[in-house]
């Protein structure tokens, strides 16, 4: 693995290795007083965020630091980006400055692919931390880690993804990864929030959350952005919540073992009721915890293990 740009086409064997490593990381750190491994000493990781983010940026920073990498954070507001520097020039600058790995969050779909092509030959690895509506592969991997932990295995499990699939990079990455790992995926959304050509995705499509909940092993709620209402994607927040929100009454339809996931940030009362988010069936806090371990595993595979394994 030279870069991690998406889960579309990601070899399930590689994904499984990453998940296994994440588990190892977690066990290794568990109970340690000093959470620091020497693995990436002397390596430099630069995170570049053109969009606001709390958990993803912090998670990458911690992942790097817990493995002793030097981590530098660049945000669009406080950099040359604000002066109109192109993404290409920013990328070349960071690479020239000595980045071993660039973690990119960018509002334009495909920006991580472009970055990787511009950095081709420099040896700098690229991790896609979310590109527009395209992919968010580390989120999908941490979701898979969480599901594996809770359910034991992913193959044969049924997972519902509910909400704004059209605009969601989390949904895309999860669909590819879960399908590759052998899960059945059902997406649940009003027709306006489903992309054209979804028939070709490895999913079944439903417009009724009530009909799907009893049969699933996990339900993943997607954030609904209020600004979507301007595009007339749905009539009102209230109607959306009534139709597609995970209320307490709906949560009661879930099987006892079923897991509730949310990539955050949550809009409590909109797509998920507060008590559901905080219930034992909710794995939302574990997702965040696993996020650090999964990103440690990814950094390890890209920066430390690459030479021996040479996958992809």
């Amino acid at each position, binding site marked *: 693995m030279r870069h991690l740009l998406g889960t*579309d086409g990601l070899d399930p064997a590689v994904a499984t290795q990453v998940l296994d490593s994440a588990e190892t990381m977690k066990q290794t750190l568990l109970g340690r007083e000093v959470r620091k491994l020497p693995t990436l000493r002397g390596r430099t990781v630069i995170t570049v965020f053109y969009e606001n983010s709390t958990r993803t940026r912090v998670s990458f920073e911690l992942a790097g630091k817990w493995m002793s990498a030097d981590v530098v954070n660049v945000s669009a507001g406080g950099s040359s980006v604000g002066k109109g520097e*192109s*993404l*290409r020039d920013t990328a070349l600058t960071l690479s020239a400055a000595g980045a071993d790995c660039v973690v990119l969050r*960018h*509002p*334009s*779909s*495909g*920006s991580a*692919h*472009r970055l990787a*092509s511009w950095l081709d030959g420099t040896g700098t690895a690229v991790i896609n931390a979310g*590109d*527009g*509506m*395209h*992919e968010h592969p580390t989120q999908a991997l941490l979701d898979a880690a969480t599901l594996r932990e809770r359910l034991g295995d992913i193959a044969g499990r049924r997972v519902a993804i509910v909400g704004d699939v059209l605009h969601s*990079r989390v949904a*895309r990455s999860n669909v590819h990864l879960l399908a590759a790992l052998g899960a059945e995926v059902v997406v649940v959304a009003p027709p306006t929030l489903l*992309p*054209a*050509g*979804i028939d*070709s*995705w490895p999913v079944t499509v439903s417009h009724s959350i009530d009909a799907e909940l009893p049969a699933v092993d996990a339900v993943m709620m997607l954030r609904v952005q209020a600004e979507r209402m301007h*595009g007339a994607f749905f009539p009102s927040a209230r109607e959306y919540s009534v139709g597609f929100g995970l209320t307490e009454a709906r949560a009661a339809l879930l099987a006892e073992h079923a897991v509730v996931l949310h990539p955050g940030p949550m809009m409590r009362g909109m797509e998920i009721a507060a008590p559901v988010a905080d219930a034992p069936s909710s794995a939302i806090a574990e997702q965040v915890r696993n996020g650090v371990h999964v990103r440690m595993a990814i950094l390890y595979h890209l920066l430390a293990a690459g030479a021996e394994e040479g996958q992809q």
Partner: protein
Amino acid sequence: MTEQDAGGHEESGRSDDAPPVVPTGAGRSAGGDGPRDRGSVLITNAVPYGEGDPVDVLTVNGVIAEIGPVGSVRASGEATDVLDAAGGVLLPGFVDLHTHLREPGREDAETVRSGATAAALGGYTAVFAMANTDPVADNALVTEHVWRAGRQVGLVDVHPVGAVTVGLEGAKLAELGTMAGSAAAVRVFSDDGHCVDDPLIMRRALEYSTALDAVIAQHAEEPRLTAGAQAHEGERAARLGLAGWPSSAEESIVARDCILAAHAGARLHVCHVSTEGTADVLRWGKPRHPSGPAAISAEVTPHHLLLTDERLTGYDPVNKVNPPLRTSSDAAALADALAEGVIDCVATDHAPHAVQDKDAEWAAARPGMLGLQTALSVVVRTMLRPGLLDWRGVARVMSERPAEIARLPDQGRPIEVGEPANLAIVDQDAEWTVRGAELASIASNTPYEGMRLPAKVRATVLRGRVTARDTATSPTEG
């Protein structure tokens, strides 16, 4: 765009003196300052329209003077330029209704000179330069500048397209009559790059244009359906996370405009048709026009005939264009519609962009691709080789129909004695590899980089003067 009467040969009363509105006659003399000795050119061993035995063709003073069996035509006079066509196909010079020459404003991407050079090398003898320059060609000052720059270069007749609305903003009609009456004698108006989406403005533009014998060329894109759009709305864009540009945004405008044009009794030209559904709408709309089906015309670009949204994987913005590359089923339907005549002609939508405007992330990159030097090859590959068009058909879609639509009297004419010598010689057996850096445009954003394409223009003749020969052009003083 433009107009009537004989272009190259001088008329006396130019419309400069005519009242600004409703310029009736004279107009755009396509190129020359008047009859003068243009010498003679002897084209040997050429096959007109790819039919029958090769012939020799002699042009004298810009007009075809003699056509006869090979060896039978004798060069008269001392200054005869001899062009050995080597058995190549002889066609009327091509006419492109849709180019972006970027002057004034973005001379770092293209100028009238570099664009005209690319045009001549591509077999063109007339091109129409879209109005979305900076400043916008929404007034006679800019249209005359472009017109004069074209004449100065002298490689191809450059006809400016006038904007339909002030600043391409869609709100207020530009002074169409004044532009029509200017030295540039504008007869094609378009807000290309933007849709004239307000139905009232479109209706008025169509009505007003009837007095100018002009045509409104519409960039059909309902903007409310394409806010933020980045790619053809479908499987590919959904997977890539690119906001969709639905076919319906084009088709709904074309349907509306067919109805408005029929109602106004006006001529409508639909730019860069990109969907199967639009071809169906045209099939429905054309026969319903009170002046007959020819009053509604349409063009397709070479890239929409050959390329599809499959190329978007990898996000290289060289493939970004508006309207977007669509599906293989659209491309096949467009080729059929062109063969059938539902789509009248091929227009390049030649759109040069500076490197920094293309080598960016997808959303930040500008839409558009070079097209002038590859158009014929793409038409040969997509239309001629599969048997959808013969060389007569190629002459129709590349030259004759666009000249009729734009009312150019001396372009797209038959290859006959007494006709203007605007000609292209094509080596139909050539194969070549496209290299953006080798193209004449200042920009190099060709989507065909590295592609092997068939057929190559060997020479271009504009009113009896050789403007391009293989890879070289011969500019002239104006």
